[in-house]
């Protein structure tokens, strides 16, 4: 059945939770690409057959012409599905670049889900963002939510020790300790999952 595999691929992406990345489905992906090449071969041989019969490919409206057309359309459809799959995943990856990429490496659970060139794309895009910010000398990836109070209460989730000096003080950021910090200071640790904001 033409185009079913590609449909499954897109469907798999669409059924995932919004903003979450699933493992890149290499097997299915390769299968769709194979299918594209099969379509292309069939298309080529039909065109050759028509040429051998001395028919004008564009104007002869015989069975072979429409057969070729169906292969062509299946091919473009498969291409659209493949592109959509990669493109939509790339959107999530860009989102990750905004949230964590500029500061540090991604956690390995996410890296495992990347396809071959997706990791590179993540790095490239993070670099582009970083370059923009350095040209402007302004970090645009902090202050993601409108500020209500300059200070927030946070709990440290992982042992950070006392090595960190924030803009107005230094403290021992032991695991589970709670602090009252400047929001701008705490934000980067929150986005990396090292602290959490306590509300209410």
């Amino acid at each position, binding site marked *: 059945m033409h185009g079913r595999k590609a449909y499954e691929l897109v469907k798999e992406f669409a059924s995932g939770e919004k903003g979450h990345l699933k493992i890149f489905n290499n097997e299915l*992906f390769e299968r769709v*690409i194979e299918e*594209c*090449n099969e379509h*292309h071969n069939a298309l080529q041989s039909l065109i050759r057959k028509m040429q051998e019969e001395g028919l004008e490919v564009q104007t002869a409206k015989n069975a072979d012409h429409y057969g070729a057309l169906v292969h*062509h359309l299946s*091919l*473009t459809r498969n*291409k*659209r599905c*493949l*592109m959509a799959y*990669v*493109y939509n995943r*790339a*959107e999530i990856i*860009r989102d990750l670049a905004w949230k964590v990429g500029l500061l540090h490496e991604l956690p390995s659970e996410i890296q495992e889900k990347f*396809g*071959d*060139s*997706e990791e*590179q*794309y993540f790095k*490239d*895009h993070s*670099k*582009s*963002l970083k*370059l*923009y910010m350095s*040209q*402007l000398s*302004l*970090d*645009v*990836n*902090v*202050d993601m939510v*409108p*500020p209500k*109070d*300059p*200070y927030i209460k946070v709990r440290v989730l992982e042992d950070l020790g006392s090595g960190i000096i924030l803009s107005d003080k230094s403290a021992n950021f032991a695991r589970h300790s709670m602090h009252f910090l400047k*929001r*701008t200071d705490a934000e980067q640790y929150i986005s990396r999952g090292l602290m959490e904001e306590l509300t209410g």
Partner: protein
Amino acid sequence: MASSGGEWSAEQIDDYEALISTTDVELLKKAWRNEKASPEILPFEEALVKRAKEQIQLMEETVDDFEESGHDPLIVSLYQMDLDRVQFLLRSYLRVRLQKIEKFMFYIWKTDTYRNRLSIEEEKFTERCIRDMGKHLEETVLSKMPDNYQSVLKQSVISEEDDMVPEPQLDTFVVAKCERTTRPLYLDGSRQSAGFDSRDDHFQMVPGDLCILRYRPFQEELTSGNISLV
């Protein structure tokens, strides 16, 4: 700023509001709201951003001075809060633009009107975005496609136009607030013409009016500043 005690007269409040509405913070807020609500990228407010950055720097210095000179901590934290808000506005404004660029990079790049709306830094960013995205798509999909199907912008060589470029959806609805009285407007965006009287579906917006409109026909009203988006 505030008058010492007593009620403000209506006139005073009007004056005050008129004054406030022309400050850079207010302008930046408006630019930010417009950018956030419009489906397409709007012209970059270069002068405004430059002024805002200068003022932020000035304010940062003031806050630092206050901290050193042992001012009342409450006053300092009020200044700090104000500063934080302006910084958020500026960052969010730039961020919303970058996110639009990420989303419609190919379209913005090939459409001159949009490309001219970018700042220099944004233009460079777009260029790199396209390069990275192009490379990524090339490696994963396009290089494995048959010869005539390898374009990033077209489905195949026989497509006459670029038919694989995501475009902003301009026919979406926006909430518009009137800033200056507009000329008579038609819902479908057609201009006032000879047959003006024969049509009764026109309307006029006066300052303060709120309307929910289709974005596309009212682009011009937005760029001319007659309406703003909320």
